[in-house]
């Protein structure tokens, strides 16, 4: 089984949520935290990609190339990615991004228009980029059409091709159908990017993995356009539950969201729902009413709430055994 490669797009798709106002310092901090969590690829920049800073999409707070440079300097392991939409960004923008340290480019077109990516994909390959072909609004193309367009991107030199659910409109069956045919008929790895507009982001991501996708996108806390993307930390948790191999660390990806991203978002007046604590119940298989009790016990004994929940799961606690949580917390504190 191959590793699932996670691309975190908090700093790119998530830019939409802060109207593209992330500062260079915000970028540096968040990249450091994601890198620490061993996320494979970190995408940065304006929500609409290179040169997306416009009247039409909103102007960025920080010059995009400075953000790319800061990200590349902050990442010790992760590769830094940029997005390019032909018709908006151009090859000279790619040259600049490459010079600033970007190693991956995702070249994105509407699902029926892959041929406008030819020059950008082939030029990016010449520059030494790892190139991802990104077919947006995949729900607007049949599986056969997605395949036809994906084959074009593969023929231009794309190293990976994504079926991208930009509208969050696909249901798991539609994801499986599109990813399945790509997996079967393309030689390059297949990726999936979700939006949670119908509440299906993580389920669709899992459907994509089961259909053969090995590149999956997430963003911390699910930050992103519309209802956002699959939450990266939830993706890590679900991959572990599903027995999939990945490099990313669960606790550190949660920390990246709660300890690093949340304070940054607060300064931009954005608050995300607190999904991380309940997520742990699902991860550990623990009765849902345990959450508030475990948090109280964690506070009382100064231990990590998550470790209490995981231990309760390991001990196979059943509904009604809230009393065990204090005991576990006390034991953990003593260790």
């Amino acid at each position, binding site marked *: 089984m191959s590793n699932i490669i996670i691309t975190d797009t908090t700093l790119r798709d998530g830019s939409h949520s802060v109207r593209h106002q992330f500062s260079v310092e915000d970028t540096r901090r968040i990249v450091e935290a994601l890198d620490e969590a061993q996320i494979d690829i970190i995408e940065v920049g304006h929500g609409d990609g290179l*040169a997306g800073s*416009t*009247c*039409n999409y909103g102007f960025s707070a920080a010059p995009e190339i400075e953000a790319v440079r800061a990200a590349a300097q902050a990442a010790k392991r992760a590769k830094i990615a940029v997005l390019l939409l*032909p018709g*908006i960004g*151009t*090859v000279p923008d790619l040259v600049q991004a490459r010079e600033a340290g970007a190693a991956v480019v995702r070249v994105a077109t509407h699902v029926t228009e892959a041929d406008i990516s*030819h*020059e950008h994909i082939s030029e990016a390959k010449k520059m030494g980029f790892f190139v991802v072909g990104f077919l947006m609004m995949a729900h607007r193309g049949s599986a056969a059409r997605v395949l036809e367009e994906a084959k074009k991107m593969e023929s231009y030199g794309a190293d990976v091709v994504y079926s991208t659910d930009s509208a969050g409109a696909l249901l798991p069956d539609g994801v499986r159908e599109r990813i399945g045919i790509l997996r079967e008929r393309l030689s390059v790895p297949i990726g999936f990017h979700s939006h949670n507009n119908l509440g299906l982001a993580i389920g669709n991501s899992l459907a994509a993995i089961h259909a053969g996708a090995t590149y999956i996108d997430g963003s911390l806390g699910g930050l992103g356009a519309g209802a956002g993307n699959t939450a990266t930390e939830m993706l890590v948790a679900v991959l572990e539950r599903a027995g999939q191999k990945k490099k990313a660390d669960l606790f550190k990806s949660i920390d990246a969201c709660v300890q690093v991203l949340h304070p940054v978002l607060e300064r931009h007046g954005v608050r995300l729902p607190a999904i991380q604590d309940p997520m742990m119940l699902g991860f550990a298989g623990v009765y849902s009413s345990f959450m508030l009790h475990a948090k109280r016990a964690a506070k009382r004994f100064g231990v990590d709430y998550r470790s209490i929940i995981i231990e309760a799961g390991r001990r196979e606690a059943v509904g009604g055994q809230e009393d065990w949580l204090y005991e576990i917390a006390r034991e953990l504190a003593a260790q």
Partner: protein
Amino acid sequence: MTNKVKVGIIGPGNIGQDLMIKISRSPVLELACVVGIVESPGLQRARDMGVDASPDGVDYLVQHHGKDIQIVFDATSAKGHVENAKRLSPAGIFTLDLTPAALGPYCVPAVNLDERMLQKPEVNMVTCAGQATTPMVAAINRVADVYYAETVSSLSSFSAGPGTRANIDEFTQTTRTALEKVGGADKARALIILNPAEPPIYMSNTIYCRVRHVDMEAITKAADECLDTMRSYVPGCRFRMRPILRDPEDDIVMLAVEVEGAGDYLPPTAGNLDIINAASIRIAEAKARQLLEGKA
């Protein structure tokens, strides 16, 4: 036929065949020759119209019609035009370059078609988006001083040919340059979107102008007059949205122009191809009138 100037077309593809129909309506242009580099339905269409047509390219045109043809439309490719220009220029044939080669100056009839422009050996037609947006930027710049212009042109997918698709950077960069050099914006950006909706959409162009003098009355008047000028040679031009201030607190003027094609050879939803052809006909007719007056 002494009151008409003889013209030729190089490249009998979609653009070339649409031009054939437009030329046949012109009171001052007479189509004398159409050439391509292979036998094609476009050449056959020309013959059906009683026009001399050949697959032997620019050489045939210059050899057989070098003396009588005074204006040529080049609807080949950037590369093709560079070669064609080497033959047309020594023959003294005024050339309308509909390719992205841009060896000659950009010409947008509503903005900079004047005597001096007509004396050039050739002029370039910019891009369809440039023809649709530059006039409005120039008009608003004259009354409000545009320091940043940005255009978003949406084209129906079917109307964007392989040439445009393979060179989309060239398309956006050429349009941007025209917005600055011809439109007069200090800085500009041009974006292009392809939309595959069925039935196809009309070409739509949203134009943002960041202006130093926010005088909406003057801006609206200038835009209205500009639209009238454009409609004199592209009747299918209309506002989707007359100028508004996008945000009352800001300096961003926003308007949108839709182009419905004449439906000559190409369907009305290919307004992008229609506008560049219609603009080139406008220039050719101005040149023809000048030539005819010169003779008289």
